């Protein structure tokens, strides 16, 4: 069970923090250009943060008690592969779901 204090701290903190990030330049900085080194790093936040979060979840799933699971590896590979080939987020998710179910059926 998630602690209610933690939950509200995260909801409100994340809401305020995200709003500040969105308001930062539009509201405060105006149209002065950002330093190039900063925009260069900001460009890679999403493609670095999301894989870093996902990698341990894929390698050691909580649902199997941290045991590496071939069906989940297969599902992850299918999602990423179809996603990169088609650039279609929904198709990628469906492929991952099908691979997870099929893998679980064949290997489980």
């Amino acid at each position, binding site marked *: *069970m998630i602690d209610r*204090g*933690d*939950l509200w701290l*995260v*909801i*409100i*903190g*994340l*809401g305020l*923090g*995200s*709003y500040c*990030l*969105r*308001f*930062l*330049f*539009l*509201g405060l*900085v*105006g*149209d002065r250009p950002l330093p190039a*080194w900063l*925009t260069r*790093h*900001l*460009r*890679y*936040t*999403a*493609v*670095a*943060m*999301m*894989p*870093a*979060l*996902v*990698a*341990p*979840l*894929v*390698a050691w799933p*909580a649902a199997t008690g941290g045991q590496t699971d071939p069906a989940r590896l297969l*599902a*992850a590979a299918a*999602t*990423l592969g*179809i*996603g*990169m080939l088609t*650039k*279609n*987020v*929904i198709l*990628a*998710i469906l492929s*991952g779901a099908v691979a*997870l179910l099929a893998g679980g059926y064949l290997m489980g």
Partner: protein
Amino acid sequence: MPLPSRNSDYWQGVRAGSPFLLVIAPFGTLFGVLATEAGLNLFETLTFSVVVIAGAAQFVSLQLLQEHVPALIVLASALAVNLRMAMYSAAITPHLGGMPLWKRALSAYFLIDQTYAASALEFERHPEKTLAQKFAFFMGTMTPTCPPWYAFTLLGAWLGEAVPADFGLDFALPIAFLAMIAPALRSGAHVVAALVATVCALLLAWMPYNLGVLCAAALGMVAGAEIERRMAR
């Protein structure tokens, strides 16, 4: 009497934003379902979506909260996911920066992946549009994306109460994330950033409080930026 042109700019925005419903609907629903499975009630789930209004960061914080990661680390990780909002804010400012403060404050709240993507594309194509036209277009892109995000979250929360807890939804989040990462790997530098972050996250998994993830993401960003700098030369 002809309709004011602002109106048509608004509707152009609505049309430009509408395709994103295909992404907003399933992700909003999924967030509602997962939040309910995690024990959040309707009010908490909906508030989450209205206050934060950022899919990836909401999924991240929900996942980490369930793993009982300390709240400050949860916040830092989710805000790191949202750092790109600052980049959107900077990129949209040349177009909307001349508006009065209340309009800029309002636009900032609605600055999400989809409204940014649709508006930036349009403003690059039509720099001659007036401030009022651009604002109308931006509010148009918001209409089919932001309110549906709340609505589908709510729908998911209702569905979540009906879905049994052990439905294999544990892996929905990794799959959703992988699907979002794939189209974002636009260049070699993006691929390197993702690879470095992945390998480091696995190697640094021993670090307490999920700090390994933050360190791995920072290393991935540095790697991506460095590759871009070298390729530009």
